[in-house]
């Protein structure tokens, strides 16, 4: 295991009486892709904006590369690429000018990475930012975050607005960065994204980190959302087996969240007179419900 690149200890942030985050602790090791997952408003962006020294914590500490992220923010920034969740850029600028500006802010003029990354993401450098779609603006943010080849990428909801093909390219780029030893903190509310690329994941709910499973554990637990209909009448006893949560029954139809071995689930379902069955990945909120059962 590499040394810790990010160390967060009991971080809390309150806005007056309102809760931002209450008890966030985790560390991200060098070369690791670390997912940060939680529903909207859980505190992901607050944690990340504290790491980026945009807001000051009410208590606790956060270090990046072993240095306090507030006190040494400018120094640390040399090696961080940051993509904000909801930021926008100078609308009147053309993409080329904006990315040139971003590069010069890191002391790199005429940076060839701009062309390379833009071509990869099929980003038109000649358009004005105000005329770009949400997805294309996100591409601008991705290029701006990666153009100085940072050692740490902090990405807040990087895929929102990207179409599936560009998402695929983006994940390939992240995989390449990982192979180069870059550490990545990846915030999202889409579970499949962290399963695709992350090594570990911190699950945050209502300002608190409630679990930090490895992606192996997360997969093995195999959260599934199951909807089914049977021929005949359904009752709770038929579906009351280990791993079932949030069970809802209406006449001959039922839905529930299942956490466990898929083979076991199929065996159980096979004993029922199924008319129809639909197994899908649950949304994050449904998994979080399961965490409290």
């Amino acid at each position, binding site marked *: 295991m590499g040394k810790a690149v990010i160390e967060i200890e009991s971080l809390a942030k309150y806005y007056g009486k309102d809760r931002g985050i209450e008890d966030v602790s985790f560390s991200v090791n060098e070369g690791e892709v670390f997912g940060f997952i939680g529903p909207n408003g859980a505190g992901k962006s607050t944690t990340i904006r504290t790491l980026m020294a945009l807001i000051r914590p009410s208590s606790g500490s956060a270090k990046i590369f072993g240095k306090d992220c507030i006190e040494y923010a400018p120094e640390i920034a040399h090696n961080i690429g940051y993509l904000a969740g909801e930021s*926008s850029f100078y609308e009147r600028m053309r993409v080329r000018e904006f990315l040139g500006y971003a590069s010069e802010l890191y002391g790199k003029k005429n940076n060839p990475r701009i062309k390379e990354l833009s071509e990869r993401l099929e980003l038109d450098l000649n358009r004005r930012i105000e005329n770009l779609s949400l997805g294309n603006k996100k591409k601008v943010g991705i290029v701006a975050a990666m153009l100085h080849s940072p050692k740490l990428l902090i990405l807040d909801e990087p895929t929102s607005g990207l179409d599936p093909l560009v998402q695929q390219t983006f994940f390939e780029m992240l995989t390449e960065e990982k192979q180069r030893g870059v550490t990545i903190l990846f915030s999202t509310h889409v579970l499949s994204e962290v399963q695709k690329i992350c090594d570990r994941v911190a699950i945050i709910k209502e300002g608190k980190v409630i679990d930090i499973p490895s992606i192996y554990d997360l997969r093995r637990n195999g959260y599934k959302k199951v909807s089914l209909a049977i021929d005949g009448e359904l009752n709770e006893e038929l579906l009351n087996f280990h791993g079932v949560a949030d069970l809802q029954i209406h006449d001959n139809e039922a839905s529930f969240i299942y956490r466990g071995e898929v083979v076991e689930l199929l065996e159980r379902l096979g004993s029922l007179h199924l008319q129809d069955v639909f197994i899908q990945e649950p949304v994050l909120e449904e998994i979080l419900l399961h965490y409290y059962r």
Partner: protein
Amino acid sequence: MIIFKYELRQMRNLAVAWSIAMVVLIFLLMPVFASIGRSVGANSGTQLEQMVSGNEFLQAVGMSAEFLSKPIGLYGFITGWFFSLAAAVLAMHVGLSVITKDFTGRSTDFIYTKIDSRGRVYLEKLAAAIVSVLSVGFVYVIASYFALEANIPEGFDFSLYFLLSFSLVLLETLYLALGICIGVVWPRNRHPLLLAVTVVFITVVIGTFATTVGIDWLLFLAPPKFFGGSFIATKGSYESKYVIWLAFLVATFLSIGYQVIRKKDLITV
């Protein structure tokens, strides 16, 4: 100085537009006011002069009949009560928006997370705003010299002209500093121009009220009254107490802005 360069580039069109507008207006207005000045001067002791000398509005704005009977006096009047106020609105607007645009436009996460400290970002933005705003002021100073040359063939007192026109630059500096300070303290303000107009208008009202009622201390809250044309014409200088007060205010506003931005949570709209 990368931020300075890019901020200046973003303000360029605004500064050029205001410069052109002020140059055009001074060349359009100066012939009219020069001719009025000559008329008043040529009709000394007449009804026109009596009307001017007894005018409460002119007294409230700090102008004397003697001063207004000369073309340079009327130049002082339009500089102090038209161009200076317009420049003050521009300066405050630029000061406000150079800070607030990142909060309302959600670009704080871009500009304040790079290798420059917050203090450095602030200073470079301030420098860009100063260059942008004061360039408009100096364009006016230069353009008005040529406008006076063209419209006062009998000549004029250069030092008087310079003091009158340079008061616009001093006022710009003060309102710029005030704008930046308010921008830092209240960064999520979506209407910087409206706020700038309101603040300048309020200071004008305070100044006029203070002069009319005779409350001298209140004039310290009214920058447009700091550089009265009649005083400048009589003494050949600015009132030192207001110059010192202005310098103190500028330093205070900029220091507050610097200290607050370094510690503040940067939360966008």
